[in-house]
């Protein structure tokens, strides 16, 4: 009887969810950045113009769904800390609109289907990289590093750096220095981006017990670490130009955008309020879009 009541309660909870809750599980804002950088990787890869439109579209759908699926599994694992953080407490699982196990199932099914479809429909190199990004985000970042070390997003950031490499591999079927340079660009961009966020969401992370760098090493140390990565970003963003993947137009744009990135970071160091960190966080999102857009425009 008790079991029946428990089952009815579970069914009622999950039945209360609608399609928008499942879309929220897929983290659409993160997905948009993944799709954009993935498409840019595809666009600049040699041979893109001869790739069939439907195959290119399939690669993008698989990339989007796989990123979303990893996000759903992340929400399942982090449901306890999501409930105590202001930024995440309205997510479907802590709000009780989607059953946790159903979210996990949804994530696993989408992960497997997207990798297999990428393999069958596009190529197996892209599928392997897609699987690696998923495994890295779920197991290395979410389960292993996030709650254990302040370097969680330094190493875990690799998961978000895969999309341009996947896009490139979808066209060429291989991994090259040029696609590795795009991987490195996002990998080095990730720490200052997330640390800018953690500077003004510090209390939220403390409450959840996540050892973000400002909570563990202090605000000053975090800002100096951020500057180290920001400085490294400048030569890295120029790599496509030096490798011959992009021309002078891109080189100048990347130089200007990266120089301004360093400037916003310098303001964060000099300013003791949250304002500059918020500005830098906003600019960092714009920066990634702008660099990849410049890369695409350069290829036209």
């Amino acid at each position, binding site marked *: 009887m008790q079991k029946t009541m428990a089952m009815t309660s579970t*069914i*009622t909870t999950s*039945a*209360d*969810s*609608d*399609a928008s809750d499942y879309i929220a599980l897929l983290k659409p804002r993160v997905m948009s950045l993944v799709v954009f950088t993935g498409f840019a990787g595809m666009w600049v890869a040699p041979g893109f113009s001869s790739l069939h439109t439907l195959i290119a579209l399939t690669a993008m759908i698989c990339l989007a769904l796989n990123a979303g699926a990893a996000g759903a599994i992340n929400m399942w694992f982090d449901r306890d800390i999501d409930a105590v953080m202001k930024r995440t407490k309205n997510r479907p699982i802590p709000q009780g609109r989607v059953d946790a196990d159903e979210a996990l199932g949804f994530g696993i099914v989408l992960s497997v289907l997207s990798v297999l*479809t990428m393999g*069958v429909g596009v190529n197996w190199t892209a599928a392997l990289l897609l699987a690696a990004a998923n495994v890295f985000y779920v197991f290395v970042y979410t389960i292993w590093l996030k709650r254990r070390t302040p370097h969680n997003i330094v190493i875990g950031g690799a998961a978000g750096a895969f999309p341009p490499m996947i896009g490139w591999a979808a066209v060429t079927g291989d991994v090259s220095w040029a696609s590795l340079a795009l991987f490195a660009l996002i990998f080095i961009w990730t720490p200052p981006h997330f640390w800018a966020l953690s500077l003004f969401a510090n209390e939220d992370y403390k409450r959840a017990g996540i050892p973000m760098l400002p909570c563990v090493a202090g605000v000053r140390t975090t800002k100096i670490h951020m500057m180290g990565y920001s400085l490294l970003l400048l030569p890295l963003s120029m790599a496509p130009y030096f490798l011959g993947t992009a021309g002078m137009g891109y080189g100048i744009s990347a130089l200007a955008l990266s120089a301004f990135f360093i400037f916003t970071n310098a303001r964060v160091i000099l300013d003791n309020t949250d304002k500059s960190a918020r500005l830098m966080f906003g600019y960092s999102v714009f920066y990634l879009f702008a660099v990849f857009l410049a890369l695409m425009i350069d290829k036209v």
Partner: protein
Amino acid sequence: MPISDIHRKKRQKNIIVGLSILAWVALIWAITMIKMTHAG
């Protein structure tokens, strides 16, 4: 079996899942056709 409240509540989700499966099958079929044409 009578249509219960749960059936009604889950109708939208079931329709979306059904359509997604159909779309996936259609996609795999179309890609197979494209790959066969290019291989030929």
